[in-house]
């Protein structure tokens, strides 16, 4: 993983790195730190393209890191348009590149 291994000012324990957990990106198994943003975990695994735009099919990735710009929208556990820069990574998450606007699976409304 592309992680900082030494730092002249910050103690490595300062970095928000929870337990190491496994998740998948487009089916490939990867490792990341629980509780850190999904986008940061992907970046540490060398993944830079997080979605493709609806019309021009332009690649998009990390940009603002504060949940404002929509650049890092991905499909997480089947839910599209997840802001991966502010969504914490959990063990076993299924993370996928979002193509276009994303499609929500709408659960059928059952009578009570």
């Amino acid at each position, binding site marked *: 993983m592309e992680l900082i291994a030494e730092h002249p000012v*910050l103690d490595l324990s*300062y*970095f928000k790195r929870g337990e190491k957990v496994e998740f998948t990106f487009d089916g490939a198994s990867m490792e990341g730190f629980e509780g850190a943003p999904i986008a*940061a975990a992907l*970046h540490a695994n060398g993944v830079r393209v997080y979605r493709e735009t609806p019309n021009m099919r332009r690649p998009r990735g990390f*940009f603002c*890191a*504060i949940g404002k710009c929509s650049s890092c929208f991905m499909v997480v556990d089947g839910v599209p348009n997840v802001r991966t*820069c502010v969504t914490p990574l959990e063990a076993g998450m299924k993370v996928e590149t979002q193509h276009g606007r994303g499609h929500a699976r709408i659960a059928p409304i059952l009578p009570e």
Partner: protein
Amino acid sequence: MTDISTDILVVGGGAAGLSAASEAASCGARVLVVESDLQLGGQLVKQTHKFFGSKDEYAGTRGYKIAGILLDEIEECGRGVEVLTNATVTGYYAEDKTFTVMRGEDSYSRIKARRAIIATGASERLIPFPNNDLPGVYGAGAVQTLMNVYGVTPGRRVLMVGAGNIGLIVSYQLMQAGVEVAAVVEAMPRIGGYWVHAAKIRRLGVPILLKHSIKEALGGRVVEGAVITELDDKFNPTGQERSVDCDVICLAVGLSPTTEILSHAGCKMRYVPELCGSVAERDRTMRTSNPDFWSAGDAMGIEEASAAMVEGRIAGLCAANSLGLPAKMEKLDEYWARLDHLRAGEVGEKIRSGIVKVSRGGWEACCNE
């Protein structure tokens, strides 16, 4: 949908918001801090350099340690301050005096607050150039988040756009993290940030190219390089171009105040270039034209974290006072003396001239017009 109620809602848990929350809680107010990021501390948690300013605002202390001091102060407030992280205030409904907040990606709550302090900070500006949407073109704050909060290497070699304080400081931080900085380009004919920050990266051999800007980002799926160009006195390209080997292009081209909620609340706004955007009119207590709303920090105009902390204290003190709580209002003069000190001299001239344009003697006088 759940409902939450509080005396004072503080939107934003950075330098201004944390200062406001602990000040208000120390007067006896019940405070709720809502923060959109995964942790409190705002931009302070990402700063590895020692701060300037004055001793009262921790000059000589590294930014992330100042965040620690503020968080300890919040901790000491005990149940006086409740905190929601990973929660974004999405709107204010004036007819019900109700805020909506999105927690995580799909859970919503309503917040009823008697007073609100808006400390939403700022967002990064983007400049137009071909391929500026390629992955690898990152805001300076995002680069700091990756490397200084989560310990992730942002890239191999970075082109920095902008030689203001943020561009200079983040260039140095990149080198601390073991990342090469190819160059800093700056469209203006002079360095915008403090000389001491520029000297640190010059000593390490990074060129600061004045009257230069980025012409385009290169690459198919991600950034694989950049073309930079020299500019003439009217900021037009001279034709002198060169390509730069880089996999990250970091934009440090300024910030804009984040003011959506103040607009929702009908606060009188005014565009002030010296404060870097449209900001709320305010009185000496940091109250806006909506009597239930205070604001502090970068949301009120782009400035240093040291000033944001003092403005936050003023807003917290005065919002608590408006609820009839025992606030020591004599502290107001002391806080203003600190602000005047931080804004003194040539460096503070731009801020001072901006603030004059949006300052009101008092809203009572204003409302009687």
